[in-house]
């Protein structure tokens, strides 16, 4: 029978302080979204690779117990099939500080004091208390738990990598009790000689190729008794990826990390491991929460295609071929099918995701940001036709004032600029925002694209309201200009700016809304050499009032919904 293993890590549950609450994404919406996502998958095992709490405080563990209890009960996972290991944040510095101060224990010896585990121990034993399986009572041994699946010949071994952790700065690294570890492994070997060993521990010895810094003595530990191939599941580094360490032709250690599930400063992650009936391999799927929309629209995206290890071969007799090669190989029909299946899944995910454009359109609808009326705005044109006239108006002010919609709009511009960057070499580039609303977006973009210089200018119709300095662009030695604009009806206003300020440059004009006639969009800037027009949202067409103000029947007859300035 096939197996599904869910891997989460670095929960960092905090207290009720404002700071701690701000740092976590733990909330009912998140928990239900997470559980809902997994409910249809039959999860057989849950592994939690440490940092359950942020500061090893009782209150933090109370929240963790509630959360993990809900996960196992809703996903119908037996607690016997749950491995929870401790992380460096699960060592109580408060207890060690007290011991140091009250008992005068020398700083160098503090890490040896097993009271440092007390708070985690209580949480651990409370969590498993209804479970009759006594092996899951807390131990401080270097291998603190063995969970054996005889049917699949798999054994999960919980490893204590916090042996040296204490409140002393010099003790802040992963470390296993080498002698204890080797002794236990030696004893276990005859029993589980032909079992696959899955090690579960907090610290990742690979540490993205930086082993010596993160895990002090892993390299020195004798692992021969663990068999030729084994897998280590870890956390700590707040990133999800894998790395295989080939030790000889027949001996490889696979390290798979998962990022933090709840810490708000990084995107939420979990991994899912699928082992088919024939136990030939572990298929890894790395999930990443996409949170660029409001919480009710969050979704989990499969990020596997960007990862180094996607599959681990468990049968030693199979030739060891790099998984990436397999995926790229045209001859491997099975892998091709699998790739197609993944692509399909990814496509389905993106179908479910609401586009940023529709998010903005919904805000406009919900907040009633479209004003219908008769608008005659001043421009700096001379003569009777000195008005910009339309039959509607979009309240961009609201959209850029509120952080959610501003983030979405910034993201839309960012993606478009990145798209332009891919197609064109943008050197000596100036980004210019037109008008106050666009400068709000432009400011964010100026941080996201530090390689571009940035400036701004008022709208043409507002020039007289501003200081003359604000109409100048400070320097001119640019090849390319990216213009950030909010609404474009036609090229008239833009052409004026281009001709006055940037006539010799390559222009990329990006407008948030194109509100002109559908068929006329292509013609915008078409007469201008080296000028390109892009719009991000085309769904709102606003009719123009094309008559002179003196002939406008709405003005003449003083009808309602006339807005003039």
């Amino acid at each position, binding site marked *: 029978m096939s197996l599904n293993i869910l891997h989460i890590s670095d929960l960092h549950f905090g207290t009720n302080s404002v700071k701690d609450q701000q740092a976590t994404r733990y909330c009912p919406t998140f928990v239900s979204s997470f559980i809902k996502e997994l409910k249809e998958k039959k999860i057989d095992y849950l592994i939690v690779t440490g940092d359950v709490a942020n500061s090893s405080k009782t209150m933090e563990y109370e929240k963790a117990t509630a959360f993990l209890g809900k996960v196992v009960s809703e996903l119908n996972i037996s607690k016997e099939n749950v491995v929870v290991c401790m992380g460096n944040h699960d060592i109580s510095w408060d207890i060690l500080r007290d011991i140091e101060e009250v008992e005068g224990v020398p700083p160098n010896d503090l890490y040896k004091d097993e009271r440092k585990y007390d708070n985690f121990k209580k949480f651990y034993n409370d969590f498993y208390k209804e479970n009759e399986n006594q092996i899951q009572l807390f131990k401080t041994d270097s291998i603190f738990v063995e969970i054996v699946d005889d049917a699949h010949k798999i054994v999960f071994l919980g490893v204590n990598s916090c042996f040296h952790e204490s409140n002393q*700065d010099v003790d802040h690294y992963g470390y296993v009790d080498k002698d204890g570890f080797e002794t236990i492994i030696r004893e276990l070997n005859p029993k589980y000689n032909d079992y696959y060993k899955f090690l579960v521990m907090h610290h990742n010895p690979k540490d993205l190729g930086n082993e010596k810094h993160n895990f002090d003595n892993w390299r020195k530990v004798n692992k021969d008794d663990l068999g030729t191939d084994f897998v280590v599941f870890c956390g700590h580094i707040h990133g999800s990826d894998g790395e295989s360490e080939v030790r000889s032709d027949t001996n490889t250690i696979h390290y798979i990390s998962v990022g933090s599930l709840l810490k708000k400063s990084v995107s939420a992650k979990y991994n899912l491991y699928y082992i088919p009936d024939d136990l030939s391999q572990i298929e890894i799927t790395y999930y990443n929460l996409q949170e660029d929309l409001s919480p009710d629209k969050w979704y989990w995206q499969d990020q596997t295609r960007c990862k180094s290890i996607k599959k681990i071969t468990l049968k030693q007799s199979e030739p060891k071929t790099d998984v990436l090669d397999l995926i790229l190989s045209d001859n491997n029909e099975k892998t091709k099918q699998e790739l197609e299946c993944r692509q399909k899944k990814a496509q389905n995910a993106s179908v479910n995701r609401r586009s940023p454009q529709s998010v903005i359109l919904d805000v406009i609808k919900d907040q009633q940001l479209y004003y219908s009326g008769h608008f005659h705005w001043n421009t700096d044109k001379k003569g009777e036709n000195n008005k910009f006239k339309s039959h509607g108006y979009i309240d961009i002010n609201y959209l850029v004032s509120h952080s959610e919609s501003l983030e979405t709009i910034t993201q839309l511009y960012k993606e478009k600029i990145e798209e332009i960057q891919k197609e064109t070499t943008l050197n*000596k580039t100036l980004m210019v925002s037109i008008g106050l609303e666009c*400068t*709000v977006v432009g400011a*964010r973009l100026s941080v996201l694209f530090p390689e571009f210089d940035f400036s701004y200018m008022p709208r043409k119709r507002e020039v007289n309201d501003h200081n003359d300095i604000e109409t100048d662009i400070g320097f001119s030695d640019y090849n390319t200009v990216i213009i950030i604009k909010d609404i474009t009806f036609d090229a008239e206003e833009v052409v004026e700016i281009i001709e006055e300020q940037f006539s010799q440059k390559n222009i990329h004009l990006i407008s948030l809304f194109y509100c002109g006639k559908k068929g006329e969009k292509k013609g915008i800037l078409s007469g201008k050499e080296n000028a390109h027009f892009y719009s991000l949202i085309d769904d709102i067409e606003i009719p123009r009032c094309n008559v002179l103000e003196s002939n406008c029947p709405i003005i003449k007859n003083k009808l309602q919904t006339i807005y003039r*300035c």
Partner: protein
Amino acid sequence: MNLKPTLYANLEIDDTLYVFLHAEQVYRNFSLCNNKLGYFSHEIAERTVYDIYNYIKENTSEINNIVIDCAEAEEAHNIAEWIEKIIKFCEKQNKNLAFCRMSERLYGDAKIHDKDLAEEKNTDKTYNVFSRGCLNNSITDEVIYDKFQNKNASILGTNPNNKFVIDRTGEARYSHSSNVQLPRYINVKAYIEQKGLLFLGLYLLCKKAICKKIIQELIIEEKRPLLFFNSIAGSYLASVFSKLACVDMVFLNHLGPKKKLYHELHKEQLLTDRDYLIISDVVCLGAEVERAKTLIEHAGGHLRGILSVVLVEVVSERPKIENDIENVALLTLSKDYNPINYQIKTDF
């Protein structure tokens, strides 16, 4: 001229480079749209230290001292390799290097204890670690503010082709948007165009506002202050500041009769019973601030603070703003401190 800072928030004074680790991280987090912590995110990513290492490697040929201020950076992952490279590079190039105000956890994450470096522990339990020479003065927030203010003043005041301060002698002495008579005009737009110093400035402005408790790490969105601005320069400052401080914005485009329609449409955005902060480029006589304050109070809001790039206090006739409204500025010009010789010639 394309200024391409690879760091967001660094300060060069004489032969010393100051790098602000937390500020660097906070600006890099702008690209994560799911990171809504702004200044209140205290975790350092490997990439940030990697970028700092590369910047130091490429841009410090004239620099003898490098100070990496780690205040507010509480922890990090996978940075030890790059910290080590920075140390080795500085040793090889005979540069003095100091990591200041490292938290206990960051100190552990950076694995500095593996190395044979001089160190001292501050009263707040943070560490200063030195490779080669020690610094003469320890780094505090006040020291950083002073250094930034002096650097600001030198940029605004001494450059012979100064584009930041424009002499208006011989021209009309009133600007379009203000009734203040100024023989010298501070060109905030040019200051914004030169992004590097501004990013550090806005970060420090946010830090000051947090110290003065007008920005707080509040969890309830409804209790966060709203950021009010009313000019195009203000829109730039407010946009970056709002992301740092995790606050929403409200704006009216120039306060004056010309914008009657605009105000008519947007006046409802001023919310009753909310706290407000005004952000402005230059607060001179305070007339615009007064107008904004009237609008805010008319809507039932409360003005709690004024944030500005330059605060001018060179005239005693300046309208007095209530004591309970905090004023936070990057550069405060007063009768005693006026390195750019800024004057107001309005006949009071």
